[in-house]
Structures are given as structure tokens and as C-alpha cells.
């Protein structure tokens, strides 16, 4: 495997109450140390304080840590329906992107107890579509594939990083049609592990639609790296998946 830059779109840290201790990075320093020893350069970080304390605390912490980590880190901000005022209004959020090192937004409808539909989060999605801000949509947060399809039919140019850590074995049947229909939907590779799945996805959609994610610290980061790194695809494809695509998404954000 050629040495190449690795950025990971699915990194989390903090102390969730429902995980064994071995699958936790207690804080950002622990995460950063683990990434260094795995030769991972950086990526998109999510603070689990979001689920344990509040969305506001999770966002605040993620931004503070991303800023302290330097340019190699961006953070994911979690949003709730803007009408409650807990998270910034869409235009205010847009103005905060660069300073807060926000690299993507997401929703956690199960823990947040609201439906992830256009009525509830459409204002954010309209802004995200217009400004090309990546939206992380992972089925593990309680959003269903059907809801994702409905959101995308309302916002078909939305940039989405799609993942699923629940229905582990049906990614291709449930997500490939979304990749086929919506041009800015990308797949987080932490949802992929079946044999020759990467090769198939690259053949069908091209390597620009895959973003390396490991799911660390819940998953072994080396497993995801080995899966992509030994796939029967070109080194150019691997370089895109491992980092260039995520950098491209960050650089494409308007106003960030």
C-alpha cells in the first residue's frame, strides 16, 4: 500500500453511557493520540457530549477541540429545529462555519426526539444545499432510509455523507439507489465491509463518491484502513477515498 494522506469522516470521542470502556476515547487528546499511532492525519470529529449533555455543549466542545487540533480537524455540528433557538439560525450558522471549524452538520432525531423531515430541518437543509455544506446522515441516529430519500427529493443537490451502522448488511440495496439518483450523495466507508464491496461501489459510482470513515473508537480504525487500502482499485481511487474527497467537500463549502 502506498503511503497516502488519511482523513477520517467518522470519528467520535467522549464518554457515552452505553458503550464498553474499551470502545471509547475519553477526550479529544486520547482521540488524537490514537490517530497519530494509526497514521491517520485528521478528519471530521463528533463530540459524544452531544448525546450525553446537550447539543449546545457537544457543538461547543467539538469546535473548541477542532480549533485546538489545527487545520487537520473539522467538526460536525448537530442541529435541532431552529424555531426552538437551541442551535443558531441557518444564516447565523453559515457565518460561524470558518471560525468554529465546522466541516459538516447533522441531526440526531432519535435522541433529539423530532422527525428529520423538511418541516423540521428544511431551513437548515436549504442553506446547506445552497452553501454546499456536507450533511452527515447516518441511520444509527434514528433517521430512516425512507426519510433520507424524502429529504433528498426536496433537496436533490444536497451534499450528503451517508452512513448506516444499524442494518449492516443491506447498504447496497438501500443506499445505492440514492447514490444513483442524487449526484452529491457520498458513502461513508465505515458502513462498508463486505467482500469486494469497495470495488463494486467504485465501479458503479466512481471513487469520488466514497469518503473514508472508520467509526473509531467503536471500530478498529485499522480494519477500515486495510479494507480500502488493499481493495483492488487504483492508487488514485484510494487517495480520493482516503482524503482528497473529504478535503474537496470542505473546500467546496461556500463561505467557509
Amino acid at each position, binding site marked *: 500500500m502506498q503511503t497516502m494522506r488519511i482523513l477520517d469522516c467518522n470519528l467520535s470521542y467522549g464518554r457515552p453511557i452505553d458503550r464498553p470502556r474499551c470502545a471509547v476515547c475519553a477526550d479529544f487528546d486520547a482521540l488524537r493520540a490514537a490517530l497519530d499511532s*494509526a497514521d491517520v492525519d485528521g478528519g471530521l470529529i463528533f463530540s459524544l457530549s452531544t448525546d450525553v449533555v446537550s447539543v449546545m455543549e457537544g457543538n461547543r466542545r467539538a469546535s473548541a477541540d477542532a480549533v485546538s487540533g489545527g487545520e487537520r480537524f473539522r467538526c460536525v455540528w448537530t442541529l435541532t429545529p431552529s424555531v426552538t433557538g437551541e442551535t443558531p439560525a441557518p444564516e447565523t450558522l453559515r457565518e460561524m462555519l470558518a471560525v468554529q471549524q465546522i466541516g459538516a452538520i447533522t441531526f440526531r432525531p432519535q435522541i433529539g426526539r423530532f422527525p428529520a423531515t423538511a418541516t423540521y430541518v428544511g431551513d437548515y437543509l436549504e442553506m446547506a444545499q445552497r452553501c454546499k455544506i456536507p450533511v452527515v446522515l447516518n441511520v444509527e441516529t434514528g433517521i430512516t432510509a425512507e426519510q433520507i430519500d424524502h429529504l433528498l427529493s426536496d433537496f436533490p443537490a444536497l451534499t450528503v455523507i451517508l452512513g448506516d451502522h444499524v442494518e449492516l448488511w443491506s447498504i447496497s440495496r438501500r443506499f445505492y439507489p440514492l447514490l444513483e439518483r442524487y449526484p452529491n450523495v457520498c458513502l461513508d466507508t465505515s458502513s462498508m465491509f463486505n*467482500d469486494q464491496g469497495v470495488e*463494486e461501489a467504485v465501479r458503479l459510482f466512481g471513487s469520488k463518491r466514497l469518503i473514508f470513515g472508520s467509526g473509531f473508537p467503536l471500530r478498529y480504525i485499522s480494519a477500515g*484502513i486495510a479494507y480500502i487500502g488493499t481493495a483492488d482499485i487504483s492508487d488514485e481511487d484510494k487517495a480520493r477515498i482516503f482524503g482528497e474527497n473529504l478535503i474537496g467537500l470542505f473546500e467546496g463549502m461556500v463561505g467557509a
Partner: protein
Amino acid sequence: MMRAGSPMAQAFFDNGRLPCPILDFHGHMHEHPSIHFAACDTDGMLKTMDRMGVRWLLFTSHRAMYDPTEGEWFNVAPCRRYPNRLKAYHGVISRYVDADGAIKDVENAPEVYVGFKFLCDYYEVRLSDERHAPLFEYLNATGKPALLHTWSGSPYNGPDEVVKIAERYPSVPLICGHSFMEDVRSGVRQTKACPNIWYELTAATHFRGNVEAIAEEAGTERILFGTDLPWYATSYNVGALLGADITDADRENIFWRNGDRLLSRFDWYKQAELE
């Protein structure tokens, strides 16, 4: 990438292959009603085995697990095509057990079969069910292994059932597929006193800490490598082991040494390895 402290990891990430062989004790093959696989035919799987340096794959075709009428043919044909790479566990479809017929199949085709595969959760029949008894008695008499689907909270193939079988049939190498997923540490703790129990890593590698938990509880001398190929890519499981907090010597145990020790009692294996 991932080179710190592990020459084995360094070799793998430099060359895309391990510096040792791999014996994969848990595979499948062919299509599945609920899942699309990118490569589940025999040649596609052999391609992966060749790329990753997998010496042997012990598998059960999905057809043999779900189709009691003609499923076994899908075990037989691939093994006859690749006699020095593939061995099959005869499927045990617990609701349709024909013990005499299954034993006859295994006896008549030593070039195909290594033992039996039990998938009790799927059929909601306990491992200790009387229907399985003749099969375990046969395995106990011959020393052939059983691959068990094991899950921690299961009444059908959880730790209690496995211990029951292990004590009743002490000469059967019982390979605990998935190593009691959901609560691996507890499952291993409850079963490790039985010396004929082995722990296999399919799906357990999906969650960080499981490999270390099994190693801490039972030692790495009883862990066997497995992938569920084509469910998991071989590379994914190799990568997980390379990232686990164990030594390269432990990894060698898991990738092949333990499997070699287990299989060395069988003529088919010794003969193939000599060729």
C-alpha cells in the same frame, strides 16, 4: 500506515499481504435472500483468498444452511473444484435434521467435509436438542469439529448450551463462531473451562476491544481466524487484528498457528500441506 510496534502490520500495510498464511475457519458462499454480495461465487471468493494469502477456507454455502432439499450440492461442488483450498461444514438445518443422511454424506465425501455447522438461533432449536445428538455423537467419535453460531444472550446457542454440549461431547472441537457476540467477554468467561472450546472471530472484530477481551480471558492459543466471507472482507478482519492491542506472536496464533494445530490431526490436511 499502522506500522508502530508491529513488524507484521508494517509488512501488511507495505505489501498488502501478511508474512504468514491465513486459515479461515468461518466462511459462506453463494447468494442470500436478504443481502446483496459483491462477490459470493466460488471464483470471486477464491480471488479474495489468493489476494489475501488465505490458505484454507472452511465454509458452508448459504444454500446448505437454508435449503434442505438440494443445498448440500453447493458445498460439494466448490470443494471438488478446489480440493486444496476449500473444505465444507455440512449444514445442519435443525428443523429438518436427517442425521443418518448427514453422517453418510460426511463419511462418503472426506474430500469435501470437515465437520458440521450449527445455526441454532436461526431455526430456534437448542444445540442440546435431541435431534442434534447423533451428529454430536458422530463428531465425538471421529474428533471432527463443529462450527457453532454463538450469541451471548441466546437460549439456543448461548454459553449455557455450548457448555452443555462441550461437557457431553469432550472430543468434539467446538468452534464458537462469533465468540458469543453482544457480550463476548462474558461468553468466553462462562465457557473457557471446557478445553475443547475454540473462539472464532467473525463479526467480533467489528467492535473494538473484543479481540483483546477474548485474549485476556482465554489466551490467544484458542482463538481462530474467521471472516464470514463474503459477509466480511478478509482485509477488514486482518486489519482489525493488526490494530488490536495484542502481540505479533498472538496474531500469528490467530491467523494460522492455532488452526494448523487443530487441523493437523486430519489426514486430508496433512496430505495437502505436504504436497
